[in-house]
């Protein structure tokens, strides 16, 4: 076959004045027209606009163009746009090359002559590569109609319900014995004062009953392999030492446990106590018991009285001390990450005396104290007495460089206002003071609620608390009232710290597991801060809730619905195209050393037997992300990257120098 004649069309974009103000686009256009094989060279105000794209399409038809160079912004921005454009005109999408003369030229230079010179060189490099571009085929892979949801807080619950309602199978993996997450621990929610448990429990029950949801509680994801459409996931089901099928949730085992009332309840943050066999809270889902293996006398010491009382008490014969952990393998097409947050550890701010004084509580501890399902049945009692003076401290662990958290946790202003309201409701004579830096009441109904709380007599003082010290059996809270510039001391019997939201302690492990990254604040990184807030850089993996950034319940639910929708869109389509810019092994040169297999993060290359004892590497296109690590490591130069071949790159370099 005759090699086709290469006919290149070059298009220089003005980007309004973004490029044209710094780069002489006409000059760049004219020099490009002199380059070999360039049939057409034009400039245009906005290449990405409809008329700009139409211009390219009509030129392809009229001038028989078969390679296109667009000199404009970063390919991250508009490469998909122009690939689509030339495909519509019948060209292979990989016959496009872009020259970035905006981010890498006009935006970063001031001198017009030099910037024009640089743009000219960038365009000639792109033309040089265009001469060597080869059409590539994109493969299509199937997407399995099952989703994995990691985390059973409100974000995971909502995402699971939406995906399941759309008809897809959902595996919801929760590490604790019950779903519900932090929302289950809250008393009332701001600003509407809905009872948190009352609005959450119906959703929890729905998860349990939904025919499309497989709930794996007390389980952890240990391994994730594969790619969008075809993830394989390993889940470790921790032994509960309770037969789930038999347990009726009657609670007799907990009643007779020798350690009853002696183990701090995680759910009540240690304020309440539980037995070794436990359900974390009364409305837990599943409503089955779990034996705390680390605390159980029988499991740790091999002996508990004559024989374990719980086993004797269980009429359903559900207790099984022989139970072992189980590894479950799942095949899923998409993954929603909803792993939530940790509460800031207030001992990192020693000046507040948290952990030192019993009457300094974290925000979440106060939720348990004030909750009617909490250890005091909602009675606000500290050290056996009802507090008369209560001080709240805002921004504990948020907006604070001294502890490395520069961000705002977004919920503390309002939960503090709500907590002050709850105390006012229960103890109308209590004097309530809130120390704040700024009050951020930005959400729907927030400002109105903040006004209401102030009208109830809550005193807001602008100033960061500097010290909390003992004064007799009370506390002395010291601060500067920064509105008047004077020091102020307030005595208190109870201090509530508005502890902020921090990334989960094991976020790095999660990142490694899913090959996703984090933003500078430590939370998981979305693909684009504005336009792709629920996607990650890994296709098929989506984010929901506080694992991505601090947010309140309505925002969490909205993001969970967004993540579910993204996952459903892919699964409904059933197929996805994978990038064609993958690694390619020349089997004649390959020596089968296996270095590429070692270096690949995605498990794409594999050594195959190619005749007697001869090993040759082969790359699975569906797994390959085109990163190029194997091509670099290959000692014999057998691996090249499609679309970024050595020859293509060298020709670009030659054109520039």
């Amino acid at each position: 076959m005759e090699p086709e004649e290469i006919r290149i069309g070059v298009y220089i974009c003005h980007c309004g004045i973004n490029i044209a103000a710094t780069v002489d686009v006409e000059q760049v256009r004219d020099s490009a027209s002199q380059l070999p094989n360039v049939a057409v060279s034009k400039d245009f105000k906005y290449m990405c606009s409809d008329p700009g794209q139409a211009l390219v399409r009509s030129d392809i038809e009229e001038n028989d163009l078969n390679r296109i160079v667009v000199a404009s912004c970063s390919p991250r921005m508009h490469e998909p746009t122009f690939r689509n454009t030339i495909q519509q005109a019948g060209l292979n999408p990989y016959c496009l090359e872009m020259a970035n003369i905006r981010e890498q030229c006009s935006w970063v230079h001031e001198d017009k002559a030099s910037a024009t010179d640089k743009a000219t060189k960038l365009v000639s490099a792109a033309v040089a590569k265009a001469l060597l571009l080869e059409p590539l085929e994109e493969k299509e892979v199937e997407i399995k109609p099952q989703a994995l949801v990691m985390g059973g807080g409100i974000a995971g619950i909502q995402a699971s319900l939406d995906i399941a309602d759309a008809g897809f199978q959902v595996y919801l993996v929760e590490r604790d014995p019950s779903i519900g997450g932090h929302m289950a621990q809250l008393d009332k929610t701001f600003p509407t004062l809905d009872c948190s448990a009352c609005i959450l429990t119906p959703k929890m029950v729905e998860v349990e009953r939904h025919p499309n949801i497989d709930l794996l509680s007390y389980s952890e994801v240990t391994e994730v392999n594969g790619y969008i459409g075809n993830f394989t996931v390993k889940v470790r089901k921790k032994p509960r030492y309770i037969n789930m099928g038999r347990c009726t949730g009657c609670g007799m085992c907990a009643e007779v446990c020798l350690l009853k009332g002696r183990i701090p309840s995680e759910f009540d943050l240690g304020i309440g106590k539980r037995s070794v066999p436990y359900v974390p809270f009364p409305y837990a889902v599943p409503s089955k018991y779990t034996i705390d293996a680390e605390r159980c006398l029988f499991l740790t010491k091999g002996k508990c009285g004559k024989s374990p009382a719980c086993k004797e008490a269980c009429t359903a014969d559900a207790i099984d001390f022989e139970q072992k952990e189980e590894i479950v393998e799942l095949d899923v097409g998409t993954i929603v990450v909803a792993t939530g947050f940790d509460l800031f550890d207030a001992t990192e701010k020693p000046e507040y005396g948290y952990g030192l004084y019993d009457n300094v509580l974290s925000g979440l501890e106060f939720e348990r104290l004030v909750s009617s399902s909490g250890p005091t049945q909602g009675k606000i009692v500290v050290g056996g007495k009802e507090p008369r003076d209560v001080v709240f401290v805002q921004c504990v662990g948020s907006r604070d460089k001294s502890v490395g958290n520069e961000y705002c946790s977004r919920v503390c202003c309002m939960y503090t206002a709500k907590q002050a309201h709850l105390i006012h409701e229960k103890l109308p004579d209590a004097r309530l003071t809130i120390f704040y830096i700024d009050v951020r009441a930005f959400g729907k109904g927030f400002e109105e609620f903040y006004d209401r709380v102030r009208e109830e007599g809550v005193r807001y003082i602008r100033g960061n608390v500097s010290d909390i010290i003992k004064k007799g059996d009370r506390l002395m809270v010291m601060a500067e009232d920064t509105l008047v510039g004077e020091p102020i001391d307030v005595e208190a019997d109870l201090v509530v710290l508005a502890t902020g939201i921090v990334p989960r302690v094991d976020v790095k492990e999660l990142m490694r597991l899913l090959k996703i990254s984090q933003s500078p604040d430590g939370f998981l990184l979305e693909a684009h801060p504005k336009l792709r807030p629920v996607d990650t850089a890994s296709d098929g993996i989506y984010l929901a809730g506080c694992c991505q950034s601090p947010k309140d319940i309505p925002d969490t639910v909205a993001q969970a619905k967004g993540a579910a929708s993204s996952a459903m869109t892919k699964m409904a389509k059933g197929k996805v195209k994978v990038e064609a810019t993958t690694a390619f092994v020349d089997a004649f040169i390959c020596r089968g050393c296996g270095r590429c297999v070692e270096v690949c993060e995605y498990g794409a290359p594999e050594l195959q037997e190619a005749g007697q004892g001869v090993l040759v590497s082969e790359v699975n296109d569906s797994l390959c992300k085109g990163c190029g690590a194997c091509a670099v490591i290959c000692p014999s130069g057998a691996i090249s990257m499609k679309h970024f071949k050595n020859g293509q790159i060298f020709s670009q370099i030659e054109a520039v120098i």
Partner: protein
Amino acid sequence: MFRKSHFNVRKFIYDGFDKDMAKVVFEREGIWDCTTCSACLNKCPKGVDTLGFVTGLRQLMVEDGRIPPPIRDALKSVSTHKNPWKIGAEKRSEWAEGLEVKNISEGADILYFVGCTPAYDARLQKVARAIVEILKRAGVDFAILGNEEGCCGSEIRRMGDPWTFEYLAEENMEIFKKYNVSKVITTSPHCFNTFKNEYEGADFEVQHYTELIASLIQEGRLSFSREIGKTITYHDPCFLGKQNKVFDPPRKVLTSIPGIKFVEMDRSRERSLCCEGGGGRMWIESEDSEDRLAKIRVGEAMDVQAEILATACPFCLLTLEDVVKTEELEASIEVLDIAELVIKAL
């Protein structure tokens, strides 16, 4: 009210935002009140360099010649005698007479940098002698600079004279280099802090003496033979604790002394209250008329029934002991340096 000074660093920053900062500071009282303890710096959620700001303001005062006489005298004394106590440099090593301490010119593993106050102040000389005795008992190979030792510059810098500080730092580093000093221990947390954090290009290791003693005890090179049957609390010096997070070694030393009952005050470690001796305040009184912080501090020690208030800083020792004397509390509480307690129990 638990705060005494009306000095408000935030107000200075605020008022100086669109005005000539020099005018603001000249018109305002309180700039010499700050003890540079760093409580504000440690707590500032926005990482504002409040301490740098205070020393910068004082620099403006010094540049303009608006220096309170006691500060002026201290600064001048450093230039002439290499110490702020107005005593001749040739008398610097008189405290060590009869102790047979090696001079660094003979070579040693460790340089013991005594510091101006322990070298010249009669009360603190006891501490320096105790440290020498302890190191000898543990068989540590150490030496002193003798009369060649000069001020570390820490307080000078904080009195608004960065020029003399630079000069002192360079000179000290040259002397250390001359004797191939690779490790330094100090009596004072102030010398320790400035060597560790403010000497640019320093290539020697620095430890506070309490850190060294703690490791000598741990290694079994020091053992106690006598009991001290007293209740003891410990006051964290700001330059050791708050500013350098050395909280545990002094406590380890104290709790390994046989017979003592160790109690913590309500405000301890990061939460400790300043004694008011830092930032040049050894030379100038506060402009307010409230109780001294040292008085509040001694009160806090007595609240926890301490019979001995231990500390590990020359300035803390002097300010706290001063209160015990002026308030006639000698019968109830005694202020001692950790080194003095160690030597009692050896």
